[in-house]
Every structure is written in structure tokens, then in C-alpha cells.
């Protein structure tokens, strides 16, 4: 049945649970059989436990390093995405929908890279947590094993010790097998991530990623800059034009205003009539709206 597919030649009714534990036990027994003196087993196993502990701790540190690197790259990509959105906003403000679209397309690409990195980050974080817990558990078992080992050595003859040694050894080697697989898995993951992170770093350094993700930083930016510069020029131009034309039209306006004011004037100067003589015009100017004043008084005074 299913089990036949999993492992040929074993009882069909045996579940997955049983089967996996048998594999572990077989491993432990094989290792035990190699030892001539059972006490040797204890020291040898303890040595390997300490090695594994060191390895697991290093593994935790490696995963953390890898996680931090991914974090750094995520920040860089986020900045890139923010910048592109900013560019898109500016481009829209300048009426360049095409440019805004280009910037947003690149932002989408940066965003998808970012999402990918976020998933990796979460994986590494989970791996780090698991390994940390595993290393604490292994530490507890190694400490217990050391105590047990000393007791067995001190209290029992080789023959008596056998059973106790077997049990302790099987228990700890099961843990070591489990932790060993976890660390192997973490190492594989870390290696994969480091390779990818290295590739992204290289791309970023070479500027090639800018092409793929951010766009050669400057083609959108330089167009925006150019447009900003040229719109500055346009603004200056129209300001200057305004200044140039201001002289003539404003005088005309002033005249027109003068007339209308003259029309309004009756309130204060009923006796003056529509075409009041200069002195009266000067008194009128006090009532003229502020915006019109600059031209008028000068006229009046001059």
C-alpha cells in the first residue's frame, strides 16, 4: 500500500509514524554496534554533541546574518519604490502621463522584488526561531547526557551499563539526528539566500538592477529635471513678459479704474461730478482699492 511506496519490504500496515522512528532507531543501533566498549560510546557521543551544539549556534548566527542582509536589500528596494512613486507624482503634475506610467511600471517591478524578499525574510525569521529553540533544547539534553554519562561510568560495570547507555544514546542520537537535519536545512536555505542576495548586491553595484527595477535612475529623473528646468524657464519668461506688458496695460487699466472710480466717487464728492479736476482726483485716490494705487498716485503726483 502506501507504505510499500514509501519503503519496500516492510509491513504494509505500518504507518508513517512508525516507519520514521524505525529509521532513527536503526541509525542509533548502527552507531552503537561500532563501539567495542559501551563506555567509549558515551564519550564519543558527548564529543559529537558538543560539536553539533557549536554547529547549531553558528547556524543561528548565519541565518541571522542572512536575514539582516535581506532586510537591508528590502530597505533599498523600498526607497527605490518610494522614489519612483514620487517621480510618477511629479510627472503627472507636469502633465506627463507617459512618464508617470513608466515610473509606476518600474515601481511595480521593484515592488514585486520586494514582495519576494519579504517572503524570504519571513522564511529566514522562522528558520532562525526554530534553530534557536532547537539549540536550547539540545543544550538541555547535552547537559543531561553529561550528568547521566558520569553516573553510568561511576556506578555501573560495563555489562550493567549497557542498557542504560543504549537508552541515553538512542535518546540523544534521535535529538541529534533531528537537530542535524534542521541545521542542514537551515544551511541550505541560508546558502540559497546568500547566493540570491549576492546576485542582487552585484546587480545593484553594477547599476544593472536599476535598469531592471528602478530604471537607469536618470532617464526618468533627468527628464523630470529637464522639464522642471524648462518649466522654470517658462515661468521666468512669462514673468518677464508680464513685467514688460505690465507697464502699458496697467496704465490703461488705471485709466479705466479712474473712470469707474469717478463714477463711484459721488458718495464722497457729489459736487465734483464725473470728471473731477486733478486735486479732487488726488483725494479720490485714497478711496481707490489698494491694488490700483501704485499707478494712480504717481500719476496724480507727477
Amino acid at each position, binding site marked *: 500500500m502506501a507504505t510499500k*511506496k514509501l519503503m519496500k519490504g516492510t509491513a504494509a500496515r505500518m504507518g508513517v509514524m512508525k516507519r520514521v522512528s524505525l529509521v532513527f532507531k536503526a541509525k542509533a543501533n548502527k552507531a552503537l554496534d561500532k563501539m567495542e566498549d559501551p563506555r567509549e560510546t558515551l564519550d564519543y557521543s558527548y564529543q559529537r554533541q558538543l560539536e553539533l551544539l557549536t554547529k547549531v549556534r553558528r547556524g543561528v548566527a548565519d541565518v541571522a546574518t542572512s536575514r539582516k542582509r535581506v532586510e537591508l536589500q528590502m530597505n533599498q528596494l523600498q526607497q527605490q519604490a518610494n522614489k519612483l512613486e514620487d517621480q510618477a507624482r511629479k510627472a503627472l503634475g507636469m502633465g506627463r502621463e507617459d512618464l508617470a506610467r513608466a515610473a509606476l511600471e518600474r515601481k511595480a517591478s521593484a515592488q514585486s522584488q520586494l514582495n519576494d524578499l519579504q517572503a524570504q525574510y519571513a522564511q529566514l525569521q522562522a528558520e532562525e526561531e526554530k534553530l534557536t529553540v532547537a539549540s536550547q533544547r539540545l543544550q538541555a539534553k547535552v547537559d543531561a547526557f553529561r550528568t547521566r554519562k558520569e553516573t553510568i561510568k561511576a556506578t555501573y560495570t560495563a555489562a550493567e551499563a549497557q542498557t542504560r547507555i543504549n537508552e541515553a544514546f538512542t535518546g540523544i542520537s534521535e535529538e541529534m539526528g533531528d537537530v542535524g537535519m534542521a541545521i542542514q536545512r537551515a544551511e541550505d536555505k541560508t546558502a540559497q539566500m546568500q547566493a540570491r542576495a549576492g546576485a542582487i548586491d552585484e546587480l545593484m553595484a553594477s547599476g544593472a538592477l536599476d535598469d531592471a527595477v528602478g530604471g537607469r535612475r536618470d532617464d526618468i529623473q533627468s527628464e523630470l529635471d529637464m522639464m522642471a528646468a524648462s518649466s522654470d524657464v517658462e515661468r521666468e519668461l512669462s514673468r518677464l513678459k508680464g513685467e514688460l506688458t505690465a507697464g502699458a496695460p496697467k496704465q490703461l487699466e488705471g485709466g479705466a479704474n479712474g473712470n469707474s472710480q469717478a463714477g463711484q466717487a459721488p458718495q464722497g464728492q457729489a459736487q465734483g461730478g464725473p470728471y473731477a479736476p486733478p486735486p479732487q482726483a488726488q483725494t479720490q485716490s485714497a478711496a481707490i482699492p489698494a491694488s490700483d494705487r501704485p499707478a494712480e498716485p504717481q500719476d496724480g503726483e507727477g
Partner: protein
Amino acid sequence: MIVRILGEGQFQVDDTDTTELNRLDTELETAVEHDDEAAFSAALRGLLDQVRLQGSPLAPDSLAPSDLILPRQDSSMDDVRKLLADDGLIPG
């Protein structure tokens, strides 16, 4: 009895009633038999949940070997096959 979930630790599981555990284990086997990855991963999750529900974590300094060992939750069928292969995944 003691059950280990790989990558997670050991649990002391009350084995007065293992009906549910056996049912889930059979489900797991059936999934493998039909080469059904989705069913496999659902059955595995169900089995592990049942162990967590029915058991309590064993003290970390216990050196007792497990009666049963289960693959880690995110295992694929292929992972389990490798685990069961003669010189499979288990180091040492």
C-alpha cells in the same frame, strides 16, 4: 508514549486512545498511496495537530527515545521518502 515531531520536539502523548492518531496516520498513508500531495500535506497537518492536542511537550532535558517520530509540518512526500531511504536525510 513519546512522539517526536521533527524540527519541533517531543511530546508525551496519552496513549489510552490512539484511534484518532491511527486514523490520521492511515489518511497520511492513503495520500501517499494516491500520490496526492495536497491530501498528504493536509493529513500531515491534521496528524501533527492531533499530537499537539493530545500531548504535552516533554521536558527538554529528557533523554528518552521516542516511540513514534513524525515528519516536520512543511514536509513534502518527497522529503518523507528521502527520510525513509536507507542513507537518507538523517545525519550521523
